[in-house]
């Protein structure tokens, strides 16, 4: 089996199965589940056969360029694949667990309302996971990364008629978006370092890299830290750990497979994939060891006070992943890989059997009288220490609060300052600023060099403020939606001052955005005729508008530059026009993209998900 046909088959399976699963009907349970488990089953067979030949033939990594999506003189966006030991281990992990869990879910989810949705999302997730582990460059990885984020969101919010799953889905999604900043900025820096979109093979080849880094060690270190942010967010390392237990909102098998195994180890995958890029950076390695150990200690302490079985398993898993990060920092790749496999299998199984704990422990207690005294222990230094940090552990070391205070609250404060502006007003201000922007752009020759130098930053910052405003809007949905589009226009405008480049880049970038906005605006306007919609609450309109809700989800994905419209390539293109020296510009651009993504998902969540605002049918309590 050639590597190319192996990858095509391995990747094509979930891709085809995903689209096929969309076409099936809701009640076709059997077809949906067979499609899913045979996909994973065939993947497992493929990886075993290929793995056998790969081992026999010398275990060499293979990399090849799949297709070029867009290319110009100095820029090329291409899909690239890489198969090596790391890929195959993760492929084995993913395929074997997906196979087992989809069979498990076939029965477990029988007659569940979202049966179809569940298997659609699992296949979509499989596609994202496969893309990540087979990716040969950052761009390909990022596509998978985004798919993983969205499918995680959908799986956590699987019980979309209740508030907590929906809130937590948004929370996890926001942590993932923070992680995305790392990838976006790392991609940008790498692009400038190599003056091209680089592959992992090139990046990891030491000789090559030393050449590129020789003049820019600071940048190398920065890139390494950016990788860590992304990896830590996905693998629930400090300071992001508190999302993992909150992701356990879907059906138990989906929590088991995604948050017990596949999804949560992807951060470790990223660190392993980029290992040779940073393993010369001593400072970073010490940091990684410290961060891993600290995560391991804190997470394991938190896990000890959990009175719910799933959060106990989640924190225990985070602690082991902390140790895995330490192993990676030491360069013990094989040890880390076995650790990943073992941890993934163990936690998946523990989560699956978690309901059994009641009968098992109750029985155990019936027969173990000494356990009864558990509450009263002798006062020792250790027991007093446990007592002193008990509350801290119970409050999860305030990690949730920390994210809230450092990131979301400041954003809200900025957004609230803008509250005085009403919709029309903002619109006209925006229109005027945009017209001024275009006029300036056309008459660039008359502008002073200093002003020209300032304008990109001004418009990027303007765009950032608009994104924040869109994110913190509490009232009008259409206003928020329109602001999101304005943000993209601002960014586009900002960069057009930065560098003179082909206008088609703007077309790539804005085409998907504007189209998505137009459809979204139309859908909301149509809904407003009969329904009350606003952003101050969860409205749960999906109960009556499932189709509109689905289309609106696509709109949101399009608006946030998800790889379903050309805007995804456009985003990357636009970034290539930010100079290495323009850190502020890059930061604000990346940050507004991230906030944009959050603002769009927030709109979808508030309007369509959560407890239905109309109470003529069974509605879950907000606290449930």
């Amino acid at each position, binding site marked *: 089996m050639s590597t190319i046909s192996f990858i095509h088959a391995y990747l094509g399976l979930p891709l085809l199965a995903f689209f096929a699963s969309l076409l099936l009907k809701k009640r076709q349970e059997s077809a949906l589940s067979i499609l899913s488990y045979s996909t994973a089953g065939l993947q497992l067979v493929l990886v075993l056969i290929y793995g056998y030949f790969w081992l026999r033939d010398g275990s060499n990594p293979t990399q090849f360029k799949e297709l070029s999506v867009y290319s110009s003189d100095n820029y090329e966006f291409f899909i690239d694949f890489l198969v090596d030991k790391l890929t195959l281990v993760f492929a084995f992990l993913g395929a074997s667990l997906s196979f087992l869990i989809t069979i498990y879910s076939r029965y477990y989810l029988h007659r569940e309302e979202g049966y179809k949705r569940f298997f659609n999302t699992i296949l979509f997730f499989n596609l994202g996971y496969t893309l990540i582990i087979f990716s040969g460059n950052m761009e390909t990885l990022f596509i998978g990364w985004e798919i993983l984020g969205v499918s995680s969101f959908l799986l956590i919010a699987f019980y979309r008629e209740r508030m907590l799953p929906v809130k937590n889905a948004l929370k996890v999604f926001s942590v993932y978006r923070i992680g995305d900043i790392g990838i976006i900025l790392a991609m940008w820096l790498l692009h400038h370092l190599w003056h091209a979109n680089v592959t992992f093979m090139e990046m990891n080849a030491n000789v090559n890299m030393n050449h590129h880094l020789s003049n820019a060690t600071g940048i190398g270190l920065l890139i390494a830290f950016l990788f860590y942010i992304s990896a830590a967010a996905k693998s629930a390392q400090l300071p992001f750990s508190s999302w993992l237990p909150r992701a356990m909102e879907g059906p138990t098998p989906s929590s088991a497979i995604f948050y017990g195994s596949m999804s949560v180890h992807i951060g470790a995958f990223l660190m392993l994939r980029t290992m040779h890029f940073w393993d010369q950076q001593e400072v970073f390695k010490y940091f990684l060891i410290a961060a891993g150990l600290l995560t391991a200690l804190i997470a*394991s302490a938190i896990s000890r006070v959990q*009175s719910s*079985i799933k959060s106990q398993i989640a924190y225990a898993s985070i602690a082991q992943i902390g140790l895995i990060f330490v192993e990676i920092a030491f360069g013990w790749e094989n040890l880390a890989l076995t650790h990943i496999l073992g941890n993934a299998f163990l936690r998946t199984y523990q989560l699956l059997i978690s309901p059994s704990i009641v009968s098992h422990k109750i029985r*155990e207690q*019936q*027969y173990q009288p000494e356990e009864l005294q558990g509450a009263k222990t002798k006062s020792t230094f250790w027991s007093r220490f446990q007592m002193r940090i008990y509350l801290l552990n119970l409050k999860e070391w305030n990690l949730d609060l920390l994210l809230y205070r450092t990131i979301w609250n400041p954003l809200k404060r900025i957004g609230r300052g803008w509250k005085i502006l009403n919709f029309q007003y903002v619109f006209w201000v925006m229109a005027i600023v945009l017209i001024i922007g275009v006029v300036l752009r056309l008459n660039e020759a008359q502008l002073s060099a200093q002003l020209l130098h300032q304008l990109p930053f001004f418009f990027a910052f303007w765009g950032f403020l608009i994104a924040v405003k869109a994110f913190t809007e509490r009232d009008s949905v259409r206003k928020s939606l329109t602001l999101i589009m304005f943000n993209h226009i601002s960014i586009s405008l900002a960069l057009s001052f930065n560098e003179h480049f082909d206008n088609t880049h703007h077309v790539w970038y804005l085409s998907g955005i504007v189209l998505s906005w137009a459809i979204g605006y139309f859908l909301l306007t149509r809904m407003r005729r009969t329904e009350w919609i606003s952003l101050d609450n969860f409205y749960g309109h999906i109960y009556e508008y499932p189709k509109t809700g689905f289309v609106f989800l696509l709109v949101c994905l399009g608006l946030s530059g998800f790889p379903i419209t050309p805007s995804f390539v456009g985003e990357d293109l636009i970034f290539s026009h930010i100079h290495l020296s323009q850190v502020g510009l890059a930061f604000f651009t990346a940050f507004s993209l991230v906030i944009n993504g959050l603002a769009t998902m927030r709109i979808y969540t508030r309007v369509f998900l959560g407890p239905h605002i109309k109470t003529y049918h*069974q509605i879950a309590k907000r*606290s449930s």
Partner: protein
Amino acid sequence: MNEKQAIAHVLHVLEHYLPSQAPLKDFIHHNTLHAFQDLPFHQGLKAAQELFGYQTYAPLSFYRERYREGQISESILDRVLGQEAQSGLKNDLINRTFDETTIPIVGSLRSNWKVQLGFDLDTRVHPILFRLVSSYLDQGISIWKFPIDGGDFLSAIRVLEQEGFSSLFNGKRARQLLLNPTLTLQDLLQILTGNQIYTEAYLLDQQFAHPGYSGMVLQVEKNPQALIQPRPISIEQLMFLECLLEIDALDRHFNQRWNTLHDFELATYTFDKHQLTSNQIFGFKAIWQEAYEWTFYDQVLAGLQYKAPFCDGQYQAQGIFCIDDRECSLRRHIESLHPSFATFGTPGHFNIEAYFQPEGASQRTKICPAPVKPTHLILEKSIGTKRNAELHFSAQTYGLVFGWILTHTYGFWSALKLALAIFKPAMNKMAVASTHHMHKASHLSVWSEGQMTPDGLQIGFTIDEMTKVVSSLLKSIGLTSDFAPLVYMIAHGSSSSNNTHYAGYDCGACSGRPGSVNARAFAYMANHPTVRQQLRILGIDIAAHTQFVPVLHDTCRDEFSFYDLDQVPVSSIDQVASDRSFFKKALEANAVERSRRFITIGAQKSKAALHQQVKLRSVSLFEPRPELNHANNALCIVGRRSFSRDLFLDRRAFLNSYDFSQDPEGLSLEGILNAVAPVCGGINLEYYFSRVDNQQLGAGTKLPHNVMGLLGVANGIDGDLRTGLPSQMIEVHDPYRLLVVVEQVPQVVSAAIQRNPSTFEWFNHEWIRLVAFDPAEKAFYVWQNDGFLPYEVQQSGLPKVNDILSSLAGYSANFPVIELQNQAS
């Protein structure tokens, strides 16, 4: 009402209206809306919906759809409507569009934090509050226990606050309030509401925002011994802590400057279930519900009326089963395969009111109905059995170092176990098996030697007590003569895997345990020669060769376990052997009948293969419906078996044996109905309410459930405890009230129910419907408006079939009442 009285009233309301569900290990069915039982059924439902926003009926569309499909008959609807059948009302019922929106009263005051201040208080307070309560009550999940020092909940929190490295609160004020020992709940409420007129409404709103945890705290407060590890707590302490957390959250969000509710001059409410609006929709739904129920009831009564009379003959063997609706079909299969086998039904604790303590256990479990306070203890004596723990639940897997070693090693073993669990499910350490309740070869201390436990329980029963147990049971079921050589005492239990609600699958009359101990104890008593002598004096003559044989029926696996077979006299050994082989066939037929409801089981297979697949459900980790329990229960027939024998009732009926001719005063009947009302009525209404509002009165789907402190289940990690039944248990259930049909003269029935006020309430307020069948007149009387009224059956005939199993093949929906033809012997 001053503030103290207001709080007292709140406590009173909470005590009645919060869910009264015990910890998971003691799951017992009860009427979810028991607090409304002092109102007539339809008024109670209306009050509950208006006060709490529960959906208490199915939606209008549900009834209309059934009307179109003929499952609600037009003539019955007309009868329910009475004189109004010709009016516009009927057209409104069928066609008019209604707004079914409910806006509950409870919750309306506190929602103003969000409306007036734009602040979602609950989302800030609930997670930490739930976490504290759940960690405190935790019965064995967490590795570091909540540090308690002999005190109660609040004192433990105070110690944590004082000694811990971090504070529970963000601001100083709440901390100072907590540490101030003289502070009362009233003071905190003053800070929050600013005026004592809000006290009642505020506290009710607050507690009913998380009925799961509040209910659990109340259960533990009222019944501390329900927990193996004691945790003193009270609902007042919970409210105190919650108010503190609220003050702290408000302080933080608004920098200590916020308006109390009083500042907004809000309207408040007084909790009163008698003050109701005149919302028309409830009247409509009540009519639909009645028509829906009577369409079904009429079918049943027609069946009882038209079926061919059955004559009792001589029996080779008899079986005494539990009243449980799951035994209804098994009894039918046994009778059809073995016409000279007589079956009886009675609550499955078999009159044994006792605690049971297994060998080596430190805990006792109650094996009789939950309200009973037993004074007897039955001890198990057996050869010691080793029970090994499952490593996957051990604390070691969560540690750092051991966790590291275990993931590298045991982790791979997990993968293998997972694969085995999926491809080859088999009985395993984690499964709950009905036979684990008691060791098969053990000896039970049924006979008392006068020993007492230190806490005052008598170990075993004296001869007189045993005689009383046996005679009153036999009398109540009318089995006082013509004993067959073998009388099987058939208790039941259930096996399941990965099932948090396992206790709800066992015998309800045995407090959610399998009834094996009861069956053995009863058989021991009835086989005891001295007891038999005494019984003879009482007029119950059990022949010397008659042997009572205890059996346990696993309702999930459809298997029998036999006990004490070594005591069967030689003369009956052959008969036991042949009975066992036909039991096997009957169980197989029963499994096949049950399998029609499990759509994932293919219908084309052989009976044995189907039975095998049914068995697998009990050991499959991935099976959320090991069995369907009491789903579709709707009937309780109290009468001789001949009264209902040969009728196919689709596993809907609780069957209690009763011979009217032996009970002219209705004394046995009184005892039977005193048990039927709370046990069968409780099961029925819990199913009803979990079905019509699975989100608020049921537990929702069980698939995302997370076990909290071994006490209950919640969704995710921040959710409130979920009470009631998960959707997987009730989805095929038809929301009918229980119809009790008694074969006895109406006057006797009427007298029997009125002797016990709480039983009378069930029937008189129509939370259970009651019909008497006058055996002499052969006529039905229905209890309505304080008395019996004659009822004329509408259905004109009764369909008949020969082979029920082949008629059912491939048919998963409800099946009408029919007569089985080939049965009468």
